[in-house]
């Protein structure tokens, strides 16, 4: 059973009618009803594309957070052969909110890191809804350092509402863990490519997204804080999240215009969750092209180009 977002209701109603007619057609005059079904299905498709052609930033936030949206493990399953997830920061614990591992991407040995939100109640709890503690960032740091030593490009898939805000996370240096992970990303002599596949929330996202190339799925969001948090900071209550989402400029179009992301990966009408295979393949193509562009660059050049890219952000608006 697919779940519908509130703004998809007119489309969902039409789909409901199609289902009803299909049920009737099995018992009654199949030919006449068949025409009607075809007509309604075309209308529904048209309506959906119309809805998705003018999503508000808040609606995009809901698409970016859709429970059926493909997550980290869907990407690694489809894109990474021999994927071997590795656990632990070697200091304190394993944190499954960030997954990290080795594998082969289209024949090329790589390291992969990213946030995993989970896909059902049990796995969401195990992955802490993609909100990492310091151990998650320290595991990412460990893996990136290893990739650097073995000359493996790093692929980062970003999908988090933000780092976990808890006593234990603070106690063990959440801020330091994020800072160190960002620093490690920026210091890599191997190419890294980051893709915001869902939510890119705050420091918890940038920790693994300081990359040579940064891409964003069409309906993903990338922001300095969640719209809810921004609302409570700026308006002193959470009821202005929609306004915050709009004013903070968090959509892929905005971020491309602000030159924070290098390109947008298109999603099918109705969002990535309707055709996950196509979106994942397109993401793979984009990553592949980026890594090919960076092939042959020296370690110094890779580091220098990454630095220049980030230092240029905001200077040429």
């Amino acid at each position, binding site marked *: 059973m697919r779940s519908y977002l509130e703004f998809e209701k007119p489309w969902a109603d039409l789909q409901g009618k199609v289902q009803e007619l299909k049920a009737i057609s099995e018992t009654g005059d199949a030919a006449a009803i068949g025409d009607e079904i075809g007509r309604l299905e075309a209308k529904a498709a048209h309506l959906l594309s119309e809805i998705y052609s003018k999503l508000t930033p808040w609606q995009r936030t809901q698409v970016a957070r859709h429970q059926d949206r493909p997550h980290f493990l869907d990407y690694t399953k489809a894109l990474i052969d021999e994927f071997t997830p590795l656990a632990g920061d070697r200091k304190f614990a394993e944190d499954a909110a960030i997954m990290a591992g080795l594998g082969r991407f289209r024949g090329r040995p790589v390291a992969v890191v990213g946030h995993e939100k989970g896909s059902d109640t049990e796995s969401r709890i195990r992955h802490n809804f993609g909100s990492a503690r310091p151990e998650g960032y320290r595991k990412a740091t460990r893996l990136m350092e290893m990739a650097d030593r073995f000359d493996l490009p790093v692929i980062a898939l970003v999908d988090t509402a933000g780092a976990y805000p808890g*006593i234990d*996370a603070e106690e063990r240096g959440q*801020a330091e863990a994020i*800072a*160190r992970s960002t620093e490690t990303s920026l210091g890599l002599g191997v190419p890294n490519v980051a893709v915001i596949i869902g939510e890119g929330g705050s*420091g918890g996202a*940038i920790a693994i997204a300081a990359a040579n190339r940064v891409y964003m799925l069409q309906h993903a969001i990338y922001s300095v804080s969640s719209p809810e948090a921004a609302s409570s900071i700026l308006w002193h209550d959470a009821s202005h999240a929609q306004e*915050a989402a709009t*004013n903070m400029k968090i959509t892929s179009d905005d971020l491309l215009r602000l030159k924070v992301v290098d390109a947008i990966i298109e999603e099918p009408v109705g969002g990535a969750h309707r055709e996950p295979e196509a979106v994942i393949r397109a993401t793979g193509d984009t990553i592949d092209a980026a890594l090919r562009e960076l092939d042959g660059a020296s370690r110094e050049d890779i580091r220098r180009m990454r630095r220049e890219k980030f230092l240029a952000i905001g200077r040429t608006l």
Partner: protein
Amino acid sequence: MSWFNKIVPPGIRFGDRKKRDTPENLWVKIPETGEMVFHRDLVTNDFVVPGSGFHMRMTAAHRLRHFFDGGVWDNVALPDVPPDPLRFRDERRYTDRVRDARAKTGLEDSVAVGTGTVEELPMVAAVQDFDFMGGTLGMAAGEAVIKGLQTACHLRRPFVMFTASGGARMQEGILSLMQMPRTTIAVQQLREAGLPYIVVLTHPTFGGVTASYAMLGDIHIAEPGALIGFTGPRVIENTIREKLPEGFQRAEYLRDHGMVDLVVHRHQLRPTIARICRILMKVEAPAAAAPVPALADLSQETAPPESLPIAAE
């Protein structure tokens, strides 16, 4: 010419108590401790409450004056940035908030950068002023921190960063977040140049500031009692619906959890930083260097050393 130079021409010393503007009989109530303090006593004591030792926030100007020898420093010119890149508006226009903050503080934005000497050792220091929109990290502040670090590289001096910030500046959205990797690059450049990076965490330091340049120092010093963390205590409390432990996110808590090297009383900051930088820079101590207090005493009140300028305004 910036406002600092207008009112504080290089070479002017701040030892003259007669020049202060505040009436001598002005009493200040310290909200955090409830104490009533003579304003003059606060100023002469570098905004440490004489009775309780409570460390109040300092403006950027007071901080630089307190830090550098003789209260003398040169301002580093800071890059201009595009104003209001997102055309942001919450309850008020962002441009109005910036204009008010400028009027209130006399600063262009939340970070000021100065060069001078500390116990005769040349240094570059940057200060975040919490009075300027909560010391938030936007494009201007990010560029200022980068400029400070790069100036230190260029002059081959240690860099001292006094942090005080609520975190990212929401009104600049993603461009604020981008200051985390951008400042981190400048920290890496300082490190590659082999120069010391000393972070002084002052009350309060949170969010994207802590999660970038504030936690990447060679040495992390915190002022006593300063609140330091990634997520603010109120947000944590609201998320987990639990009472926070005593002393949570205080300077001493961070030291006990391995995130801070030293908790240092404001009166001991100058000699401590100078001593560390001399060792890291392999420079001999000057004959007149302050006596070295026992390590355990660093966070305690001591008589200000002779070389400490008495700020008076």
